[in-house]
């Protein structure tokens, strides 16, 4: 029976996924194509502004721009011409679009490859201990991945500022700005790769113990196979579940590394697309989006091929036993870590709430931590403890809500991989800013706009993960057995599929929590989200970023709080899950 249901869906899947990709890509490009008409902001005005900042927006000038760009023809004419293969010329500069986009794309791809190398190194380092112990059957305690949580919580732009200042300016090891040769790649690759590597490493580290506890590993150990054999095969067993995460985590950096590109002055695609979007330079924006869509699809196909190459026949033949977490007790210190983090956040919240977060005192500017201001003050003399405390609930609340919505949406879409695979690949490489622009175009400036925009693109990692894990789980013999015993769809989902997916999904969501906070704040310039001076952690980090070197405490506080939140989320969930499973086990 396994053989009959294996070959049949392969072709329709490919066909349907292909159609899904085309459909999703077309929908996205159309949405981008009508952006200037959607937003209500006159493209003639933004284009004029981008060309010449001091230009008076006289009606004659605007008419001249409008005629020159053919704006009166409406979006359809433009879309048709563009689809006809004419990438056109930039509305702002009048230069051909294609050379600009290809140059920026090649820069961004090179940077992404550098980041990929760092990602792999960091992930390897984070998993090294588990692999070493596991392959020697000495894996006693569950590793909650606090180290991964700490690294994954580091804001990329902060890391970039720090690296540029310390390694670029102070020590002069590497050039701090520009893009002229391999040595220019080092610092930006590190800034982008370390958090991404922590993400990947954290996910891999969670699933590795399960592989080491499978019967084959025991057999291999008992029959005296070398540890490297076990390690290799355990990785081969677990990597396919993590591989899809490379798409939203690493490949998405091609278009989504704007902050780092700015800090290191890299002429990449992220900046090109953002500048084009802000100036409503439609030809550049559309072609950049197309490049990102094609990249996403290509990477998606590659990941799929890699996964199938790794899993091979067992997946095809439905003979893949499910990976199941062994009952490992978490390290005892983990409770303490979780407790300490919770206590720290609670103390921060209560102490902060008793203070005024908005009181500006220009005389008390950038004061270092003292008794009066335990965490120091920012550039306007506002108390940082107060701002952190007042922002805690809002920040954590919104980030949790957005993550929950994204994760649930991702889970639901991942359950129907045939319909969603194309959409996932297309959206995965889309920068959140673009979603923000679309949302701002529809709703105008709004408090909930940022959350909506992040949800719009934030579900892709979870959908990709769910789809991958489900495919593996469905290929398990126990699922086939359950089906032959007469299990219905609901039963399968509840008893077999969801339990296999949810823990990994949860870990993924918690590791991504700090990134969500930062992405939410990064949309502020579009008028999305809470307006200043409302304290909010992401804003605290971005508004104090210029003072990193002059007054490090202004960013250390918020960054530390973010790390604590991430560690609490990850360790807390491990502790809770463990005690829950023990209760059900007893």
């Amino acid at each position, binding site marked *: 029976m396994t053989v009959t249901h294996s070959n049949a869906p392969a072709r329709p899947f490919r066909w349907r996924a292909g159609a899904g990709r085309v459909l999703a890509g077309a929908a996205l490009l159309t949405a981008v194509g009508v952006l200037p008409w959607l937003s*209500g902001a006159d493209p003639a*005005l*933004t284009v004029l502004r*981008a*060309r*010449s900042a*001091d*230009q*008076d*927006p*006289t009606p004659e*000038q605007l008419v*001249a*721009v409008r005629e*020159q760009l053919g704006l009166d023809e409406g979006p359809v004419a433009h879309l048709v011409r563009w689809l006809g293969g004419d990438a056109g010329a930039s509305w*702002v*500069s*009048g230069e051909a679009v294609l050379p600009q986009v290809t140059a920026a794309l*090649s*820069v961004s791809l*090179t940077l992404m*490859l*550098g980041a*990929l190398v760092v990602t*792999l190194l960091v992930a*390897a380092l984070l998993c090294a201990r588990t692999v070493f112990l596991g392959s020697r059957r000495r894996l006693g305690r569950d590793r909650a991945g606090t180290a991964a949580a700490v690294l994954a919580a580091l804001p990329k732009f902060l890391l970039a500022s720090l690296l540029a*200042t310390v390694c*670029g*300016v102070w020590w002069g090891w590497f*050039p*701090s*700005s*520009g893009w*002229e040769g*391999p040595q220019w790649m080092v610092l930006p690759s590190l800034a982008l790769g370390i958090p991404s590597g922590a993400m990947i490493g954290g996910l891999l580290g969670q699933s590795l113990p399960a592989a080491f506890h499978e019967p084959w590993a025991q057999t291999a150990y008992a029959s005296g196979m070398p540890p490297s054999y076990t390690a*290799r095969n355990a990785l*081969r067993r677990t990597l396919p579940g993590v591989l899809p995460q490379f798409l939203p985590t690493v490949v998405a950096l091609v278009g989504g590394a704007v902050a780092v590109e*700015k*800090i*290191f*002055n890299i*002429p990449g695609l992220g900046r090109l697309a953002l500048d084009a979007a802000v*100036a409503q330079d439609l030809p550049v924006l559309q072609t950049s989006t197309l490049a990102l869509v094609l990249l996403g699809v290509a990477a998606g196909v590659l990941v799929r091929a890699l996964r199938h190459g*790794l899993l091979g026949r067992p997946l095809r033949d439905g003979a893949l036993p499910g990976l199941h977490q062994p009952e490992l007790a978490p390290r005892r210190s983990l409770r303490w870590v979780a407790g300490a983090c919770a206590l720290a956040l609670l103390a921060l919240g209560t102490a902060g709430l008793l203070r005024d977060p*908005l009181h*500006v005192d*220009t005389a008390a500017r950038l004061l270092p931590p003292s008794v009066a201001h335990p965490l120091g003050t920012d*550039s*306007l003399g506002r108390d940082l403890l107060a701002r952190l405390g007042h922002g805690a609930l809002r920040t954590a609340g919104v980030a949790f809500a957005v993550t929950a919505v994204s994760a649930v949406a991702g889970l639901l879409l991942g359950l129907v991989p045939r319909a969603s695979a194309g959409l996932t690949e297309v959206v995965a490489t889309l920068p959140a800013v673009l979603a923000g622009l679309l949302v*701002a175009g529809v709703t105008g400036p709004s408090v909930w706009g940022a959350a909506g925009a992040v949800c719009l693109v934030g579900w892709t990692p979870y959908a990709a993960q769910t789809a991958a894990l489900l495919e593996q789980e469905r290929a398990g013999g126990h699922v086939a057995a359950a089906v032959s015993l007469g299990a219905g769809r609901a039963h399968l989902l509840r008893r077999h599929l969801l339990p296999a997916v949810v823990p990994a999904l949860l870990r993924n969501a918690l590791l991504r929590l700090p990134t969500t906070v930062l992405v939410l704040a990064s949309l*502020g*310039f579009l*008028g999305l989200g809470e*307006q*200043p*001076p409302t304290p909010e952690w992401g804003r605290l980090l971005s*508004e104090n970023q*210029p003072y990193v*070197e*002059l007054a490090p405490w202004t960013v250390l506080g918020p960054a530390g709080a973010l790390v604590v939140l991430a560690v609490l989320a990850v360790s807390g969930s491990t502790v809770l899950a463990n005690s829950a499973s023990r209760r059900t086990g007893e």
Partner: protein
Amino acid sequence: MRTPSRGLIAALALTPLLAGCFAQSEDGGTDAGAGTNGRLRIALAVPPVQALSPYSNDATVLSKLSVAEGLTALSKDGTAEPALAESWTRKNDTTWTFELRKATFQDGTDVTAESVVNALEKADAAETKPRVLSDVTLTAKAEDADTVTLTTKSADPVLPLRLASPALAILAAKAYAANGTVSPVGAGSGPFEITRLNGKTKATLNRFDGYWGGRAKAAGIDVTWIADGTARANALRGGDVDVAEWIPTAQAKLLGQDTRHEVPSVRTDSLILNTGSSLFTDEALRAAARETVDGSALVDSVFGGYADPAQGLFGPAVSWAADDRVEVTGRAAAATAAQVKTKTKGRTLRLATYTNRTELPEAASVLQQQLEKAGFTVKQDVREYTQMEADLLAGKYDALVFSRVTLLDTGDAVAYLASDYMSDGVYNIAGLKDPAVDKAVKAAASEGDTEERRKKIMRAEAEILRTDAVLPLVHEQAVQGIATDVEGVILDPLERSLVDLDTRLK
């Protein structure tokens, strides 16, 4: 471990393939640590938007780096001085003749009356007309090889100042393409010649030995555009560049005392009150805002000392403003905090500003506190400028923290006053419709005598300030980062010049 190492190998194998994907520069890459061969390395802030076309933002680059010249140039005290034109005379109200000097373009052709006429006609016909020509109709005619007659439709007393605008730079005929684009590469007449423009990241300039004014001391200039202020400061501190313009105030303290140089800028930051909005139609409320708003609190905090407390619309960078300043009289009496509360009837004051200049959002938070003290309820709206400009012009906000260049490309203050404060001004965010202001600005615009014109401008300033439609906060200072081994960098309030003949590495 098979897969990660496979991925690694793939990545490593691809890297050299893609190494051609760096912002390639056959010379820049190798001699990055140089500067020894007498070339200056300069980091500019605003990347080119139209391949250095003089009709765009990029025009100032041409004058900053002494690539192109106009007929005239602007002197330190704000008057016109000879450049490509050796001398000029005003024949009558609308006719001027300009005598050209012997000069050659960088492509070897001579600067002739024909080339001047061609350049000015092209500027007039440009698809988006340069701002400097927006309020004048100019006709140019070549009298002989080195005499040009310019006629304006109506009297234009500031024509020589206008011609100093970088947008009216005279380029060789080859610069003007048939499709309307303009490329100054190898087509200027200044001491430095652009030999290569690499997108929005780099440009290479070499000394032009045929310059009429002599030979420049620097052998050439390597320009890098770095949009991020911190990155610009880092490039200077790391020794990657010799000069970095516009260091953000937050970074200025990190530079050595002898590398940071502050220049009073013609930029004035002010709080614009929208007289057309429901809240600030009431002049007593505007006066209350004026009484409570204190821009000097921003100087040492938000601007880190790199600003001057506001004296009016025009600051110390406009050298003559202080002498001719007129005292403001006839202002409305301010409402007390209690009156403000009753008059606003619970309406919130929508305070807008934009993120493009990092100081403005900080200033807005300070002002919010000051305004709340006077009894207003304030709500901020902070976005990217282009995201909100349409709303600003439509008068959707009550107040705006605004940074504005007060001497536009004419170098003449009237253009700014007319567009921002006259009832038919296109940039009248304050929604001001005041007959006395209109009259005063018009009087200044039609005055030909420089001294009298300045006096009338200051009278118009007083009229505008009387309305409380604009509350000047500070006059900004620009901080230029200049390495200690460079001398002769020009600190220009108008930000039109940076490098000239005498700029060099020690």
